[in-house]
């Protein structure tokens, strides 16, 4: 899954970091039974901590099945799997918590998570 790759891939994209400069938060990503706490400080990914967790604190959580996440991260995702909102519409991605952080920075989160696709794939 290599969610840990997020730190290097986001932080090396200057434009993405610049757009995220007012974003500081920690969110929970759960793919199947695995979980990560991802901390962002002023647009840079400060840490990616793998679970399991006893009491994870986060502003919001994104949860998807392994199968759906794999499709989302494929080099050319099929229709319905190409975007976080496409997954949400199909109820294949569950977003919960304080979604203001997620929605106010939606472009950032879409582009950051799409960076987990094979290098060179468009957001």
């Amino acid at each position: 899954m290599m969610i840990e790759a997020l730190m290097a891939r986001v932080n090396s994209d200057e434009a993405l970091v610049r757009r995220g400069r007012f974003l500081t938060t920690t969110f929970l990503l759960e793919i199947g039974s695995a979980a990560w706490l991802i901390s962002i400080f002023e647009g840079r990914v400060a840490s990616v901590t793998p679970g399991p967790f006893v009491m994870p604190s986060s502003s919001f959580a994104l949860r998807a099945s392994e199968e759906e996440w794999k499709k989302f991260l494929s080099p050319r995702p099929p229709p319905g799997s190409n975007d976080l909102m496409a997954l949400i519409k199909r109820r294949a991605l569950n977003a919960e918590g304080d979604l203001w952080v997620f929605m106010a920075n939606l472009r950032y989160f879409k582009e950051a998570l799409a960076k987990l696709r094979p290098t060179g794939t468009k957001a």
Partner: protein
Amino acid sequence: MTTRFEPVVGRYMSLDLSGRRHRLYVEEAGEGTPLLCLHTAGADTRQYRALMNDDRITRRHRVIAFDMPWHGKSSPPAGWHDEEYQLTSAQYTSMILEVMAALELDRPILIGCSIGGRIALHLALEHSDRFRAIIGLQAGAHVDPYYDLNFLHRPDVHGGEICAAIVSGLVGPDAPEDGRWETLWHYMQGGPGVFKGDLYFYKIDGDIRGRVSRIDTSRCPLFLLSGEYDYSCTPEETLAVARSIPGCDVTIMKGLGHFPMSENPQVFLDYLLPVLDKISAMARG
């Protein structure tokens, strides 16, 4: 780089819509059969720029597009600052018919995308005699809300950023970068609450599921073109509408998304031109 002027000409017109004075921006290019273009929710006429710049279209068609009130260069009516904008089926229908009358358009071909595709279905049902043919892009009978629409208009979320970010995944994967980002720029430029107000029609008031099968294509030919990657109006939803209407001509456009005419116009034109040829042949036949 030499300067090049496009053949597109814009002007403003003042007219009454639903009992209120409005100032609308209208642009057009070409000569021939009128082709009236309706933009998507939260955007404006610039989405049809490629059609207006393509000689294969404009040598046979007078391509016309107008910014809906509150959109693009059309102003909201006086008093707007104390109102919540909400587009209804009735307002949308009368707006299109009034604009046609003001421009003296005789049975134009109508092409509308998204909310424009939805109202195209309403017009095919209720005003089929006013159109030569109707082309619905990304036209479905209904879309359920799939996110909290309140995020689109609140002071602690940037309206332009959120509107573009909401729709960015609706652009197909094959769109060239300039088409993708210009399409999103239009969304970034919408006024506060306008996209949300359009979605009132798209997701609530404009539901036509119960009536869409009554469209009579012998009175007005109906063509539906939908992009494969549209998850707002999915290909399945367009195909379901098409199956319920005898004589409806439907095509799913590979690799395209929700904004075919602006995200990837060159590929879209390969789908649109044969439809215009069919409409032309019908008129001759």
